[in-house]
């Protein structure tokens, strides 16, 4: 009996620790690589597709902003919306409001001097996901795919 109690307490401590670790996770993943903006944007798109995502949206934010407010010093800034239909549908079945955070955003940002930053949302850290264990499991699969894209770059 005592043993069981100790084990269950241990498990509790472990699960709390893993929660804390989750809480400390970054909201984004980022990597800066060398290359031209066009070249890197193309690579990111290609690797995302290889990981099973469709690119459902694409916004050249710098162009949109310049069109509206005139010339700015903004460098190329692309927002890609990758979405894996299967995982998105699984997520929807767990949480109907998932549509508010779909698709995930991946940013390709020109830093100048032949440097480009890639910024990806950490799907497990989105507010709607964080406290939902089922949703977290699905988001974790997305995260693994993202990290693999970043690693390939």
């Amino acid at each position, binding site marked *: 009996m005592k043993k069981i109690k100790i084990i269950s307490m241990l498990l509790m401590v472990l699960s709390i620790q893993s929660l804390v670790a989750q809480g400390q996770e970054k*909201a*984004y993943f980022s990597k800066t690589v060398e290359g031209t903006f066009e070249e890197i944007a193309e690579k990111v798109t290609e690797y995302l597709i290889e990981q099973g995502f*469709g690119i*459902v*949206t694409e*916004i050249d*934010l710098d162009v*949109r*902003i310049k*069109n*509206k*407010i005139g010339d*700015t010093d*903004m460098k190329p*800034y692309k*927002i890609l*919306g990758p*979405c894996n*239909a*299967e995982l998105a*549908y699984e997520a929807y079945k767990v949480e109907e*409001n998932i*549509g*508010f*955070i*779909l*698709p995930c*955003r991946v*940013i390709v*940002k020109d830093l100048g001097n032949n440097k480009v930053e890639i*910024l*990806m*949302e950490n799907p497990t*850290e*989105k*507010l*709607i996901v964080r406290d939902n264990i089922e949703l977290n499991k699905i988001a974790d699969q997305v995260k693994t795919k993202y990290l693999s894209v970043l690693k390939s770059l």
Partner: protein
Amino acid sequence: MKYYFNKITNYSFDEAIEKVTEELQKEGFGVLTEIDVTATLKKKLDVDFKNYRILGACNPPYAYKALSAEDKIGTMLPCNVIVQQISESQVEIAAINPIASMQAVENNALGEVAIDITQKLEQVITNV
């Protein structure tokens, strides 16, 4: 904090999209992206899903202000507006609450922009 604003309307699905696009424009938002979730799920998974559209709304001057304060804010753009058929005669229109979703980004300079954008999106939902 509720992370979205919503209204249930008696518009048809197409009317609702038209109406919300119009109200977004009045508040300075363009619809930069549009995802036909119904068609995508049919095509990819052969699932019959209700009418469901995700509009990506963005107010470029505000986006520029937000980016100047926090260059990672692009991961929250555009703001999602969802139009979905919830019954035969009812369509729900909902917009994300940017303040709730921006809490993850700790940057006080963003506060003002987030408040303005939130008020504008709330206004859109009130007006549809």
